């Protein structure tokens, strides 16, 4: 107890009796704040990363003269010199110019400040520019960028879903402006719903994430939308072979501004002209109203809507098949800087995912999943101590209804549990060599007795200023699960079908143990290696078949199992300069218990090598290349066949029938190794205040035939095996105009 009191006194005395510098970073052209800038002291190790509102604070400074540098990718650096007195507080604002891809290369080094100050286990941060210039599948897509990380496995070219260190996509928490998006995918997972014009930055945690993130076992993707311009007007028009995207942002009056962004595919409108019917389209509509009430108070309202619609009809009158599915989000965020060392954030949201499937008004499958949440946290930051304490409340609602002719109900599920939580995340820089991290979360889940505690500890030890070792141990719980498919042949076009963990079962749990080495070879070249082990003592899932069998008591349809995954990853990353990108290798092994045996899930990938690189070449053109080479994914192979015979009672004789297939053990075979190289060229033209970017991408430039699944002709002997392959070579052109 004495030690705790002493620690608290040290922390608060530093807050009260030391000098500090804080302020905002602004974009010189748009006059809007630039989030997540690196602000650090020249020739020192102290620094800070600004928050999403562009605010930064350096605490615990002694009196003296300091030169501050602000640095962020895509912007020029800026420096300012400040002289501090004793117990002094200074407000310093930076104004930096967006130089985007025309930059000639920069001398680092904001991430070095982050490296020396924080424990960022299994964490990667990506800025808008990195999404814009990476090779793209028709449209820029942040999920496709994440799929190139060594910790992530993609199940196929047709899916943007992320399988992170052995975790399935339903174990990933995807946040947009602090609020969850349930199934952020279009076209059955081919594209994500996030269009990149409205994204400022995305943080990706492959494991060991802070306890402030609720209700997921595997990973976190925390996407922040931009803060709209405080200037007059800014617009972007993007056109690809798939969709058109319009983006506008403007101020309404001082402090109040907005952006709105809309995207829609147009195949359904274009193809009928040449005689084809394509009755499918999707659209995204999102926007944000941002109000800077004062220098210290910001509030914003975010709206997000991504919807897919498929309608097969006869002469536009009778709908044969009607499908509609998508996400909607309404979120209100409030943040207040209480002092140079503390802030308060409040977030309230309503997020939903709907899915309506009707066949000639006879078969109806409707589902609506809603989550209402409120979250408040208080953050404190000093030179040595950072902490966040918060509470959140989630109310989930699950409503599934499947019927035939409105008379026969296949299943009808309605559940609405709540979760009430409190959490604490903190880190303490013990000295220049040791940083400690801790966290704890307490959850009260309605369908579970008692309170569930999830702790977390972490440590970072510096051997030198450039070399550090990290350790992390954490436990997580998840109170929702999903209807799972057990193979990869036909991914559900609807994404995850969520269900709550029923009171008959314990919540899903996962324990992460991570150990890593981080090393800055040079200021702009970084290598990291991480070993991880994840134990899932309890996982739950169900299947459509189980739900139908147990339709009277759907709570009995859950399959309880356990799983484990382990592996290591190495990543070499060029963080700044002319070449931006990384190369990563991962070795992993994932198993789950099925019918008393540990088997591989269909997304287990033993070896996986990814690389992505963007660099300026000539005439201010950027060249990007990404490649992936990995073990083939497991599948249950057909290894043999035999002839069926049957008794024909009409002729009273035995007759030969068709063939039966003999399968290998569950997922005991692997497809051939996966190979793909994508390239992209981007050229930006600027005419006065108007700029035009042309992007040429070629997916699978070597036209590798990557197998998605096999099918057979058994009437031939030997049987003929045919391959259904993934994407062949696909060129695409995109044009983006900005004004």
């Amino acid at each position, binding site marked *: 107890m004495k030690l705790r009191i002493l620690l608290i006194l040290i922390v608060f005395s530093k807050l009260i009796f030391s000098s500090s510098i804080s302020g905002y970073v602004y974009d010189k052209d748009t006059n809007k704040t630039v989030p997540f800038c690196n602000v650090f002291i020249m020739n020192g190790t102290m620094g800070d990363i600004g928050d999403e509102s562009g605010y930064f604070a350096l605490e615990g400074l002694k009196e003296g003269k300091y030169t501050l540098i602000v640095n962020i990718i895509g912007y020029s650096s800026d420096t300012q010199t400040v002289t501090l007195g004793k117990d002094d507080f200074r407000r310093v604002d930076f104004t930096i110019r967006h130089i985007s891809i025309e930059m000639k290369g920069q001398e680092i080094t904001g991430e070095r400040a982050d490296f020396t100050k924080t424990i960022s286990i299994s964490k990667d941060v990506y800025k808008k520019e990195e999404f814009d210039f990476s090779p793209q599948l028709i449209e820029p897509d942040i999920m496709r960028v994440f799929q190139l990380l060594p910790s992530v496995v993609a199940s196929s070219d047709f899916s943007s879903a992320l399988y992170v260190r052995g975790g399935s996509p339903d174990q990933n928490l995807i946040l947009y402006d602090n609020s969850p998006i349930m199934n952020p995918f279009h076209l059955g997972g081919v594209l994500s719903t996030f269009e990149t014009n409205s994204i400022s930055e995305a943080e990706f945690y492959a494991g060991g994430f802070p306890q402030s993130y609720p209700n997921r076992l595997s990973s976190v993707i925390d996407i922040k939308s931009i803060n709209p311009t405080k200037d007059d007007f800014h617009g972007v028009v993007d056109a690809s072979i798939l969709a058109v995207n319009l983006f506008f942002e403007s101020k309404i009056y001082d402090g109040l501004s907005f952006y709105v962004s809309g995207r829609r595919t147009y195949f359904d409108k274009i193809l009928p002209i040449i005689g084809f019917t394509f009755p499918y389209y999707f659209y995204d509509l999102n926007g944000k109203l941002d109000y800077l009430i004062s220098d210290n108070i910001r509030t914003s309202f975010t709206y997000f809507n991504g919807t897919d619609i498929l309608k097969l009809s006869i002469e536009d009158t009778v709908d044969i098949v009607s499908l509609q599915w998508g996400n909607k989000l309404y979120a209100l965020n409030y943040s207040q800087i209480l002092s140079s060392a503390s802030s308060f954030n409040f977030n309230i949201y309503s997020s939903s995912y709907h899915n309506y499937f009707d066949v000639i008004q006879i078969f109806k499958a409707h589902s609506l999943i809603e989550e209402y949440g409120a979250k408040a946290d208080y953050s404190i930051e000093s030179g040595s101590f950072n902490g966040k304490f918060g509470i959140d409340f989630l109310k989930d609602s699950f409503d599934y209804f499947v019927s035939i002719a409105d008379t026969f109900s296949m299943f009808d599920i309605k559940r609405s549990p709540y979760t009430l939580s409190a959490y604490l995340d903190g880190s303490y820089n013990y000295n220049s060599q040791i940083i400690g991290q801790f966290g704890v979360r307490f959850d009260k889940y309605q369908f579970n007795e008692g309170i569930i505690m999830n702790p977390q500890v972490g440590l970072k030890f510096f051997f030198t200023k450039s070399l550090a070792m990290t350790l992390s141990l954490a436990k997580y719980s998840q109170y929702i699960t999903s209807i799972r498919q057990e193979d990869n042949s036909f991914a559900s076009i609807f994404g995850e079908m969520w269900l709550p963990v029923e009171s008959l079962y314990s919540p899903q749990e996962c324990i992460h143990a991570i150990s890593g080495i981080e090393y800055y070879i040079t200021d702009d070249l970084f290598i990291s290696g991480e070993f991880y082990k994840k134990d899932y003592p309890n996982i739950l899932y169900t299947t459509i078949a189980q739900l139908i069998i147990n339709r009277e008591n759907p709570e009995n349809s859950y399959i309880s199992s356990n799983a484990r995954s382990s592996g290591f990853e190495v990543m070499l990353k*060029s963080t700044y300069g002319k070449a931006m990108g990384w190369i990563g290798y991962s070795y992993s092994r994932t198993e789950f218990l099925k019918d008393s045996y540990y088997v591989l899930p269909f997304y287990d990938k033993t070896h996986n090598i990814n690389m992505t690189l963007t660099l300026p070449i000539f005439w201010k053109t950027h060249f990007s290349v990404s490649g992936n080479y990995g*073990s083939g994914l497991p599948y249950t192979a057909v290894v043999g066949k035999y002839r069926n015979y049957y008794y024909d009672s009409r002729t009273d004789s035995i007759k030969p029938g068709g063939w039966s297939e003999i399968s290998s053990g569950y997922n005991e075979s692997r497809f*051939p190794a996966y190979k793909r190289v994508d390239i992209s060229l981007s050229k930006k033209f600027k005419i006065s205040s108007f700029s035009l970017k042309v992007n040429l991408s070629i997916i699978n430039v070597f036209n590798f035939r990557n197998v998605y699944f096999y099918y057979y002709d058994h009437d031939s002997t030997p049987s003929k095996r045919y391959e259904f392959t993934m994407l062949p070579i696909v060129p695409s052109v995109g044009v983006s105009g900005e004004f």
Partner: protein
Amino acid sequence: MNFKRLLPFLIIFVVGCSIVDDDDTIIKNKLNIFSLLSPEKGENFILIDSIASISTTVNDSIFTVKDADVYINSALCLFEETESYFYNGLYRVGTEIRGGDVCSLKIVYRGDTIISQTRIPKESKMLGISDSQIIHYSDSTIFFWNKSNTSFYKVSFTGMQDSFPMDYYMMYSIDDTFCAGQLFKIFLPESVMVDINVIAMDTNFAKMEFFGGSSFEDHFGTFGSYSKSVARGVLLIKDNPFKD
């Protein structure tokens, strides 16, 4: 062009690619066995063939199993050359098959011994229906058959259409030994000449018919039995409820 940065990435990428593995699968050699013994048939036989590996590039002969030792109730069954059943080895059963008996199958093949058994169902005859009978039936008509020493029955009404036999109606039954007119009436013409078949199946045969399952744990196929009784040339005429 700034290839200096690109080069180390590509070197690591190419070297890394060389260690990526590619698993393969091996299939064990197993047998596919099929036999349905019946007391009514003049001949009974056991069909035995190998399963084929999908990836094996072989001709049809891989299926044929000629050198198995096959016994029914300890009596050796002889291999017979035939082209009637595709690739199979056909082993003729010399033992008499009688309803109610238990028949044991034993196959010794390359050191592997496969055994199974079946209880031969006794014949189940339609009650009150004989060959060439004319039957006026309605929804309330019920056809009965007598109980066998098994629980599984298949009933079919087989007629000729365009010179080919076809089932106008077929039903399975577990334990029940009757069939109501309201079930088959809608499938039959106003009047039709049919053979009414009642097939009593043993458990293995029923397992295959109902669930498509095999009666062998380590191999594939079915060793089962049945008894069949037929009322031939029965003229079924629907009763017209509005007829005077």
